[in-house]
């Protein structure tokens, strides 16, 4: 193999000196490759000739060299070029990536049949009939052939004006796993992976309906990120689909890899603290959303699927809500609401009480609190801020450190906060309790992005409360509600179905499944606009 590689290198070097190319490279290839003599020639030609519109060279070796050049072979170590001779004596060249293809399949279904070809093939079409391989494509475009190799296809060059593309893609991806960030007690345990095809297939399996559409496209970023818009054709609002496409158009041509940040490109209010697009790693949640008229966006290399429209109340629900009886689900939702309120307001209410509304604290408790604060040199605000910042530090540290010592960080943090700080008279015990409960409350918020918003707002509430007491809390609270009332999620008011009020939709409390008779009006689904209430769907 080594001698073949050396020989091929020598041929390529030779070709860079005097080979009369009559076609151009793609701009990407030019940009990423070192500026050689060949590049200069090619770039000179590319400025005068239209790109991506050139047939393969006539000479078989030229074909191989050109495709190899496009794929940066031999620097690109995973690209393999093989030469095979058929029974008829015809020479074939196979180009493929050995890390993303099924090598056994290539051997069994491509190389073995090729070696047995006993007739001379003048065209790729003739050859295609002799290979027992499905999904064969024929192309004459060098760029298409090179892209095919990157996509896991095997290019078969036979010296004709066209070449074969045989799909043998076998990308490495992790096995089907649990939804790590959205665990449930009841309900399916599987989660999405980074493989978009797998994610699509699992959705297809979950929703056995022919109206499920995967509207796929490739973005124009460097990574050529693939996205697939999943929706029910008979349900989803066509204007919503059109709008999503329009937004995806706008995030095309971004010179960075965007698979992780696509939601920030397409959401309504990227500068708002609150997320207007939800995400999940659970196929059952996506299936549920799609079947109630929402739209999901699957992104390659992302194990989280974006869901829109995603109103505020929707984002506070969990995957498990629908699997529980409505009473139990509502109990959990009430707990979550309390957790949300505590996470947002507890420290500021404490500061407001201590500094402004002391008469509201029962006398005994007030005396105890005052006694505890006697030796503390800081004002209440500093005391709370000190602990809050420490808590944030511990939280951040425990995420960043390796899992093995993660628990140690927790213990150290608890010791620092719970014991050392109190003993050093830096904070009073009641503040430790307040901050701990606040932390627990923020952990109980199901959506991480909303939890982030709450964490930031908590400091705003804290500062306003220290300045103006409950008045400050009321002012910031009003402004927050006004802000939430003013934003949209893909054109749907963020606070719906609370305001605008939709009495037939599920709001804060989960309804009994027996009442799921109509499609949500807020999402303007085709069914809800037509007033069809015969076929029900759950809107969680």
């Amino acid at each position: 193999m080594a001698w073949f590689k050396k020989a091929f290198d020598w041929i390529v070097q030779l070709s860079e000196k005097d080979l009369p190319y009559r076609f151009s490279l793609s701009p990407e290839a030019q940009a990423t490759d070192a500026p050689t003599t060949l590049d200069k020639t090619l770039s000179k030609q590319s400025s005068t000739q239209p790109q991506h519109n050139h047939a393969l060279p006539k000479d078989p070796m030229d074909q191989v060299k050109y495709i190899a050049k496009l794929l940066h072979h031999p620097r690109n170590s995973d690209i393999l070029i093989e030469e095979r001779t058929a029974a008829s004596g015809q020479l074939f060249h196979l180009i493929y990536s050995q890390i993303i293809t099924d090598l056994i399949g290539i051997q069994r279904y491509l190389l073995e049949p090729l070696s047995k070809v006993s007739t001379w093939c003048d065209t790729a079409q003739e050859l295609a009939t002799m290979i027992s391989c499905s999904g064969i494509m024929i192309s004459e475009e060098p760029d298409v052939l090179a892209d095919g190799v990157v996509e896991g296809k095997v290019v078969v060059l036979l010296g004709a004006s066209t070449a074969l593309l045989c799909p043998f893609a076998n990308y490495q991806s992790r096995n089907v796993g649990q939804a790590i960030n959205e665990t449930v007690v009841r309900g399916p345990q599987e989660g999405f992976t980074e493989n978009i095809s797998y994610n699509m297939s699992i959705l297809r399996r979950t929703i056995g309906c022919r109206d499920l559409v995967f509207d796929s496209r490739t973005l124009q970023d460097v990574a050529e990120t693939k996205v697939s818009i999943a929706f029910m054709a008979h349900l989803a609002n066509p204007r919503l689909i059109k709008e999503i496409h329009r937004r995806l158009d706008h995030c095309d041509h971004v010179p960075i890899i965007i698979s992780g940040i696509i939601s920030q490109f397409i959401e309504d209010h990227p500068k708002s603290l609150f997320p207007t697009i939800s995400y999940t790693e659970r196929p059952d949640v996506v299936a549920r959303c799609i079947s109630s008229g929402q739209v999901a966006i699957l992104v390659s290399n992302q194990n989280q699927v974006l869901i829109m429209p995603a109103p505020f109340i929707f984002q506070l629900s969990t995957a498990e809500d629908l699997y529980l009886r409505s009473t139990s689900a509502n109990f959990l939702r009430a707990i979550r609401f309390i957790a949300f309120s505590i996470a947002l307001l507890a420290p500021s209410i404490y500061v407001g009480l201590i500094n402004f509304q002391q008469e509201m604290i029962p006398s005994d408790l007030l005396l105890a609190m005052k006694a505890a604060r006697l030796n503390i040199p800081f004002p209440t605000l500093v005391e709370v801020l000190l602990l809050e910042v420490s808590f944030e530090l511990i939280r951040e540290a425990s995420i960043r450190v390796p899992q093995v010592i993660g628990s140690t960080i927790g213990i150290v943090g608890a010791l620092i906060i719970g014991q050392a700080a109190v003993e050093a008279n830096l904070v009073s015990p009641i503040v430790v309790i307040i901050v701990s409960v606040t932390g627990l409350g923020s952990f109980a918020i199901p959506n991480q992005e909303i939890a982030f918003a709450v964490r930031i707002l908590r400091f705003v509430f804290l500062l306003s409360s220290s300045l103006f007491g409950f008045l400050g809390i009321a002012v910031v609270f009003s402004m927050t509600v006004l802000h939430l009332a003013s934003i949209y999620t893909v054109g749907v008011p963020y606070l719906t179905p609370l305001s605008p009020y939709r009495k037939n939709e599920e709001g804060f409390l989960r309804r009994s499944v027996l009442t799921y008779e109509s499609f949500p009006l807020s999402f303007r689904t085709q069914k809800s606009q037509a007033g069809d209430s015969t076929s029900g769907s759950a809107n969680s």
Partner: protein
Amino acid sequence: MIKAGHISGRQATAIMTIILVTKLMNPIATIIIRWGQSAADTLAFLSGLIMLVLVLPILPLVKDTPKTLFGLMREHFGKVLGTVFSIFLLITLSLDTAVVLRADVVQVQLIFAPQTPLPIIESLILLVAVYASYLGLEAIARSNLIAFFLLIVLIITLFIITQLFYANWMNLAPILGPGIPTLLTQGILHAGFYGELLILFNLRIFVRDYKSFKTSVFSSQIISVSVSIIAFSLFQLVFPYPSSGHLFFPFIELAKLIYFGRFIQHIEAAFAITWLIVGLLRITIMVYVLSFMMADICNTQNVRRFIPSIAIFIFYGTLIPPSLVADVDFKDVQLMQYGIFVYGLLPIAIAVVAYLRKRKNNKKSPSTEPQGGPAHVGE
């Protein structure tokens, strides 16, 4: 025509209810107690009914062509007289907003921040109002719908708790208070307690359809009057007249009574914070509506440019009354008792002129426009 979004009938109802009901929770409510005595609830009912009767004649005028109240006045009184009346209404409403804000601010200062100067509290409240007005009517209306439910829960909770422990049905007597003639007279003079109902006619163009608008006019007035009747009755059950006549903060006094054992006591601030959130939204609506009215008078589309100036105007207006007593007296005498003869009769005048013009056009139409419909009377 200025138009920046739509609001539903339910949202319009919430807006009006909040505007009318929040006054019950600040010192402005003492006006009704003062004149109605032990029959403050009856006086509230009469005032509400009279105000509804006063505005009803202009309801059909906004059926086919959604117009603002100012638009109607310009259409039927002519541009000059219509604008004069519009400016009068704008000034009256601005003063009313300033007076109510002063009452709110004093109450806020009393409960939350006794050492904070009034202008700072006012600035904070107006800051929220300006921010919200910049967000637009749709955001305000949605927030109001949430605040409306909050308000209803607050009122129900407060009254249930206080009535359970402190109500004395003997306090209701005498049921007719100062007597029927006095109640009727004061009912007319204090119809301005619900005078903000006219604001809803300025929001007509934002409401989706006439049916929703009509429903919101009736439902907001019915809810507001009902809540007033219940609130004054229950207040009377706990604080009998003349004790109630000496209380400047009836809502707070009621909330102060609530305690559960030794650990939950003095929770008036907890109730007051809910009222404050609703009260903030009330000021927000008023600032937006005033800016909108100003833009309407200036015949411009941009409401936003008037928001800061209106806020500053209200800020200074709020500082004018030397005391809370003077503030409440101004509201009672100048804005309610005198003002009702102008803004209370305006809708009737519009309706009369509209009727006369329609009649005149109908007479003219066979001879002047044999093949067409009635002449269009427009701006």
